[in-house]
């Protein structure tokens, strides 16, 4: 079984750093993108199993990025988890409607994120 791939999309380097360390530890192949455009690039090339997607990012936000991901046939089955400080029900619903598989509000617990990811890809 090939290595599971995860793409972390967030403009906050410190948050990314922790997530990267934690997932590497769980034997994921980790890719990092700082914004939506970069994320799409990497996703198309690497076809990750999971994408952790921040919503509030400069230029292309998380919603837009997800839309584009879902438009790509290759990425149809990629699981997408929103990680966002937005914690209103409407925000979550919007995210889920756009086709996110899960929604975690910041500040999150890394253990919980890992558990969520594990659950989605098994």
């Amino acid at each position: 079984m090939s290595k599971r791939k995860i793409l972390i999309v967030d403009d906050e380097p410190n948050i990314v750093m922790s997530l990267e360390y934690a997932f590497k530890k769980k034997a994921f192949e980790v890719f990092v993108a700082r914004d939506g455009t970069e994320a799409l690039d990497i996703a198309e090339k690497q076809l990750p199993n999971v994408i952790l997607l921040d919503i509030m990012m400069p230029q292309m936000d998380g919603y837009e990025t997800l839309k584009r991901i879902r438009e790509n046939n290759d990425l149809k089955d990629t699981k997408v988890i929103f990680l966002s400080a937005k914690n209103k029900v409407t925000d979550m619903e919007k995210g889920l409607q756009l086709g996110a598989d899960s929604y975690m509000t910041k500040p999150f617990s890394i253990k919980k994120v890992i558990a969520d990811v594990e659950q989605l890809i098994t």
Partner: protein
Amino acid sequence: MSNYALISIIVVYLIFLFGVAFFAEKNQKSKWVNNPYVYVLSLAVYCTAWTYYGSVGIASQSGISFLTIYLGPVIALPLWIVLMRKIIRISKQQKISSIADFISLRYGNNRLLGALVTITCLLGVIPYIALQLKAVSETFEIITDKDGYISTGVFDDSTFYISLLIAVFVAFFGTRSSDASERKKGIVASVALESVIKLVFFLVVGIYVTFYLFDGTSDIYRQASQTTNFKSLSAFGGVEDGFNWLFTIALSFFAIFLLPRQFHVAVVENERENHLKKAIWLFPLYLLLFNVFVIFIAWAGNIRLPASVNNDYYSLLLPLQEGNLLLSSMVFIGGFSAVISMIVVSTLALSTMVSNNVVIPYGFIKKMVEGNPEANAKRIKNMRRIAIFILIISAYFFYIEFSTQLSLYSIGLISFVVISQLAPSFFFGLFWRRGTAKAAKIGICIGLSVVIYTLISPVIANAINPYNTLVSEGLFGMGWLRPAQLFGLDYLTPESNAFLWSLSFNLLGFVIISISSKGNYRERNYAEMFVNHENYENLQEGAFIWKGEAYVADIKELLSRFLGDKRTNRALDIFNRKYGISEKEEKADARLINFSEKLLTGTLGSASAKLLLSSVSKEKPISLVEVLSILEDTKETKASNRLLLEKSEELATMAEQLRFANEELRSQDKQKDEFLDTVAHELKTPITSIKAASEVLDDDDMPSELRNQFLENIGRDTDRLATLIHNILDLEKLSGNRAELMISEQNITKTIAKAIAGVAQIAQKRGVTVEFDASKKVKVLYDEDRIIQVLTNLLSNALKFTERKDGIIHIELEEQDKHVEIAVTDNGKGIPKTEQKYIFDKFYQSKYQNTKKPQGSGFGLAICKKIIESHSGAIWADKNYKEGARLVFTLPK
């Protein structure tokens, strides 16, 4: 010409006038009827037979002194703009229908005063009407050329029938409405037409005499100068004559205001105030035209006609002498026009005064309260009709009895002297608050007594006993009581003498009594209203002059009796709607009382109206303090009324603004949501980072290098959190003006230098030059720490967007009149147009920053703005600067 032919002409002419009056009544709105020229021409009712014939008579005997009667009005007219406007405004507001009403209302609706004014007018005007009849009768005889024919009795005298015809005319057109303050277009139109006719025909005969009978004015002058005593006719007669002139001018000055017919045409029939503007120059012009040929006709008559003829009628006799019957008839018709218009307007005005100021308040008021509206209206109209007939018939008998002894001119002057007794109470009443009803009454009585003694008693005495000694030796043989030379003053004409003494005593009585006694509250309040009319124009129904208790139902019942149910309901409906009063309101307030009083004043006169309303209400005295406080309120209401109009216009704009503001608010509300979201996001980000790091740190396998990195991250995120919280609190403090500024006088150059020093290291690291000319020394008042904060912020922004190695940041300091202006300019990428609007918003972070993640909290410029604003300065981005960004702020000196 035969008797019957002339009577036919008269009848045809009267029918023609009936037609004109009818037309005007039917076409009330027509511009033929409603224009300033009709108003001016109706004022020319001033020119009666006295003018038409009498002026020539005077000119032929005593030269140009006939002019005095026209100089008074000419002097008075420029004053009309102020005086007449005031009188017209008061009269319209109070529905005043005669001079008696005007004076009695001024002195607190005084019933007796109204009656006294009416009596004065009757005394003055009946002889005046008689004079007109005399002129008709005499000219009639001249034209019909029946020297031998002398009327043997009343029913044999054509003048009697002519008088009756005129009475029918007035009764028909003058009493169409029971409300006397309503305008009578028919009568006014006919009077205006007659004014044209009399002027044109008089000019025609003047031209005929001057240019046809003679060879122009200089020819007449040459021939006249050869006649005996010509000098005295063309020159002034020294000091005595000067006084006579002065008094006659004063007399006619008063007459143009006070004669009932003048008051009627000028005030009651005034359609628009601005007609006055035409009147003040057109009416004098009319008078001038009328007098142009007088002196030439007089001279011509003196030259051509035998001394035995009545020189009043030169204008008629001159063409007749030439056998020009057509022209003579025209002159006759012109004179007849002058007569009719005078009689018509005078009897109309007098009949209203008699009914409203004497008969109704003294005899009929009880009956009327019991009667129904139709009967009341009928009764009032009949009363006036009867008054018209009685007036004309009395004038006729006066003419039969007395006029043979007096010339046209002297009857006219006596009339004027009598009427001028109203002058003190009338003119002082307009400008002097102290005048009281008692004083007015006593003044008029004194004045009238003097006139009767000096002018009328000799005539009566002569009529009784032609050999009496009253005139030559004085009463009881006392020389100083000689009527025409009262107190030994022997160089005045009898009329000037009477005028001087009667008016002096009248005025003296009026002033002394006014000063020594105080009028009741009603008089004082009306005085205030007449004197300070402008203040009360917007007073709701003149409401302040009444206080007391009354029931709407009672008032309504009262009004219905006189106006009928329909008109009453309509009037009250309008009243309620105007003032927003509920129909169910039971108690009447001052406004309703005054409103009703005015409604009734038009029909019954002010004294009766007051009497009637006091019968259904319990009036309480109102104090001056209350008046003043109401006045204050009114002034405010007036001001607010004016404001209201402006406001309603403003309201439309405001509604627009409100909608805009609403949108603004909604967007602000949205912004607030966004702000909170952003705050949450900004706070949660470092917390998330800290939490995540602390979670992964729980791993013993982690290499120490990485561990240190995580720990460092935690530290930096904590700082970031702290700064963020500090900024949020700082901004909110500044927004709520809770931040205390430590203002002191500082040298702004030094402060700028300090701020530059703070960023110098970073600038150097990035290779950006910061330029500033630190040589100026400018003292300004500000909080130095705060301004350093602003400068540092602007500098850091400039640095952030000026990454190029040749980056230059330039700081300019400019001293202006009231403030200093500091500009921070960089040669970076500039601020995109679309963002310029938002850069001072909270959490604004440029989407175009170079760094992947925007640095800073997004609070910087928002805080700067707050700081500068709390210094009463301004901060903005220079939109016109293209080579980079240029941010400018000012600090007041």
